[in-house]
C-alpha cells in the first residue's frame, strides 16, 4: 500500500500561491504517495513566534499538531514552516500531553526538497525546462535544515535548464517575516543587494524553496518592472514534467 504524505501548506501559499501547493500534490502523487491535506489547516504560528508572542504561537502550534493524524510523512513546501514545526515547536511551553503529540510528529516532518531527494530518493529529475535559472538559498532551509545541494542537484539534471549561480546565493534576502514590515526601508535595502546579485546572472528565473522569500523578491521585481520571474522549486519541477508531456515514472531508490 502506498505511503501517505500529509501536506502542510503555508498559510500565505494557500492564499497567494496555490499553484505551489498544487505542484506539490502532483509531484507527490506521481512519486507514488497518497496525499492528504486538512482543510482545517491555517497557520503554523511562526509569525507570532518570531515576533515574541509565545502564548499565541503555542496556541496555534498545539492546534496544528492535532491536524496531522497518522500519515507516514508530513511535508511542507517551505523550509521556514518545516523548521518551525520540526525544531521551534520544541521550545514552546507545551504540556506533557502536547509534547508527546509533537514527539510523535517531529520525525515525520520534511521540507519537500529534502523529502524528494532523501525519502523518495529521487536525485535525477526527468524533465525539460528550457530557461536560465538562478537559485536563492532560503535561510531557514539552508541553516535550520541543511538544504544546500539537493535543490541544485534536482535543477541541474533537468534538460536544457541552465543554472547560473549568483554571488552570495546563501545571503539573506531581507524578508525576515514581520521584520519586513517593521523595518520596511531596511528590509528593502537588504533586498536590493540580493536583487543586484541575481540580476548579475542574467537569468530569466529566480528559484527558491520558500515562497516567503519569493514573495518579497518578486514583489520588488514587479514593482520595479524587472523581467525576472520568481518561481518555487516545485513549480519548476512540475513544469519540467509538463514540458516533457506526461510525468515520467520515476525510479526513486526508496519510492514506494
Amino acid at each position: 500500500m502506498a505511503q501517505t504524505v500529509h501536506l502542510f501548506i503555508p498559510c500565505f501559499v494557500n492564499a497567494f500561491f496555490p499553484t505551489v501547493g498544487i505542484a506539490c500534490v502532483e509531484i507527490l502523487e506521481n512519486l507514488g504517495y497518497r496525499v492528504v491535506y486538512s482543510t482545517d489547516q491555517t497557520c503554523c504560528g511562526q509569525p507570532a513566534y518570531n515576533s515574541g508572542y509565545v502564548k499565541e504561537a503555542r496556541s496555534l502550534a498545539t492546534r496544528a499538531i492535532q491536524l496531522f493524524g497518522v500519515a507516514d510523512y508530513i511535508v511542507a513546501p517551505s523550509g521556514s514552516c518545516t523548521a518551525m514545526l520540526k525544531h521551534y515547536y520544541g521550545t514552546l511551553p507545551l504540556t506533557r500531553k502536547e509534547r508527546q503529540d509533537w514527539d510523535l510528529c517531529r520525525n515525520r516532518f520534511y521540507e519537500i526538497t529534502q523529502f524528494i531527494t532523501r525519502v523518495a530518493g529521487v536525485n535525477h529529475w526527468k524533465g525539460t525546462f528550457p530557461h536560465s535559472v538562478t537559485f536563492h538559498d532560503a535561510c531557514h532551509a539552508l541553516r535550520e535544515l541543511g538544504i544546500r545541494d539537493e535543490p541544485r542537484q534536482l535543477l541541474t539534471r533537468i534538460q536544457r535548464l541552465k543554472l547560473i549561480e549568483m554571488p552570495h546565493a546563501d545571503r539573506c534576502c531581507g524578508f525576515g517575516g514581520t521584520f519586513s514590515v517593521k523595518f520596511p526601508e531596511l528590509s528593502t535595502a537588504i533586498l536590493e543587494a540580493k536583487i543586484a546579485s541575481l540580476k548579475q546572472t542574467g537569468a530569466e528565473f529566480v528559484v527558491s524553496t520558500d515562497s516567503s522569500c519569493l514573495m518579497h523578491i518578486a514583489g520588488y521585481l514587479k514593482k520595479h518592472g524587472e523581467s525576472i520571474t520568481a518561481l518555487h522549486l516545485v513549480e519548476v519541477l512540475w513544469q519540467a514534467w509538463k514540458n516533457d508531456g506526461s510525468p515520467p515514472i520515476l525510479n526513486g531508490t526508496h519510492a514506494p
Partner: protein
Amino acid sequence: MDHNPLTNPTRNAPASGFKQWVRLYLQNSRYRENIRRATEHALEQRRLAVDEIPDWERLRQEGHRRKQQIIDHLPEHLNQFIENARARGIVVYQAPDARTANQFVEQIARQHGVRRIVKSKSMVTEEIGLNAHLQQNGLEVVETDLGEYIVQLAGETPVHLVGPALHKSRQEIGQLFAEKLGVTYTEDPSELTRLARNILREKFLTADMGITGANFGIVDSGRVVVVENEGNARLCMTLPRIRVVIMGMERLIPSEADLPLFLTLLCRSATGQRLTSYVSITGGPASSPSPEGPEKVYYVVVDNGRSRLLQDPHLKKALYCIRCAACYNICPIYQTIGGHAYGWVYQGPIGAVITPELSGDQRADDLPFASTLCGACSDICPVKIPLHHLLLYQRQRIVQRTSGPHSEKLGFALFEKLARHSMLWNRMIRLLGKVQRVFPGELPVPGWTHSRIFPRVEWPTFTQWWQKHKRKTP
C-alpha cells in the same frame, strides 16, 4: 550625519528611537558603501584563513565547550583568576558598574601623578565611557590604535569591534587630519599612517599611564592576553610607568594551554590572520628591576550588567563571545546600516542580544527585532553562540516584560483567534481577495507596498482547489 554623537549607552541612546537612526543612515550612501566594502573584505579574508583549517567545526565546538565551562562557574573562576593575579603583584579591582570602574582608574591616575594616558583599543572602556570621565577630570587620554585615533579625532565612536573607522573613506580621513592636525591634505593611506605614527610616538614616550583591554584573562596563571597588529598595545603596556588593564569579567579562559585554540579562533575570524603581529601574554610588574616595563600593574574587572546576562540560562551564552566581529561582518543588517545606526557601543547580532541587558535601557528594546533571523551569525560565530536563537529569546522577553505596542498585541491576539478557526480564517482570506479586487489600483499594505507589490489572493486558494478536486482528508 557622518557624525554620531552617541558615546555611551547609558547617556546618549537615540531618544528618537532606533528606527529613525536606521532611516538616517540608510540615506548615507558613502557611509554604506564603505561599510559594505570593509565587511566583504573581512569576510573574504576570514574565509581564506578558515579554509586552511580542516577541522574548523571541531574547533568551534571545542571553543564553545571551554567557554561554557568558564561561564557556568564564573564566580569561582573569577576568584581564582584574581587570586593568581594578586600573587603576581597585580592590584585587582572588581567594578560592579561603569561609574565605579571609571572612578577607580581616575584614582590610580591621581595617586601616581599621571597627566598623560595612552590607550589601546578596548570595547569595555567604550562601554563604560572611560575617556570622557578621565578627560572631564583633567587628564589627557590619547587613543593610539590608528582606527581609534581617527574616531577620537573626529569626535565619534567606533563603528565596528575590529575596525573602529572602517566607515570612513581615505578622503574623509585626509580632510580630518588636515583640519585637526594642521598637516597638508593627503589621502595616501601610507602617508596618513606615517603622520599618525609620528604624532603618537611622541605621546607614547611621554605618557605616564598605559591602558589596554584584554582579549583573554587566564584563570590558572592570572595573566592577560592582548592580540593586536599595530604594536600600540605593546607600547601601551611596556612604555609607561603605570599599566592598567580593563576587562569584562567574562573574558576568562581556563589556562594557557587553551591559547592555541582561542588564538586560532579569534585571529582567523577577526582578521583572517593565522596570528596577529603581536600576541602579548603578560603578568605583573617586572620581577627583577628593569627600567623597561611598568612599575605597577592594575586590573579592573568590570561587571556593568554582565551579571544580569549570567543569571539567565540562555542569555549567559552571550558571555562566550570573544569579540571577533565575524557576526557583524556577515549580518545583513550590519552590512546595510553599519555600526553607528545601532546607536550603541556593541552592534551587530551580539550587540542586539546583550545591549538590552547591559544597558537596562528600554530604548535598546528595538534591537532584537531588527533581525531577519537568517542565522548567518550563529553559523559563523567561532564559539558557536546561537545568536539568532538568543535574538528570538530576547524578543519573547521584551514582549513579556513590556506593555509593547498596543496595536501589535491586539493584532497577534486577533490573528490567533482567526487562525484557530479555519472558517473565520478562510472568510478573512476571501474578504481580503474581494477588497483587493474592488480597490482601485494597488491596495496599500503598510510597511510593504512602498517598495514591493503585495500579492493578490488567488482563486481558487489551495484549500478551495483541494475541496473541489480531492476532498480527501486524513
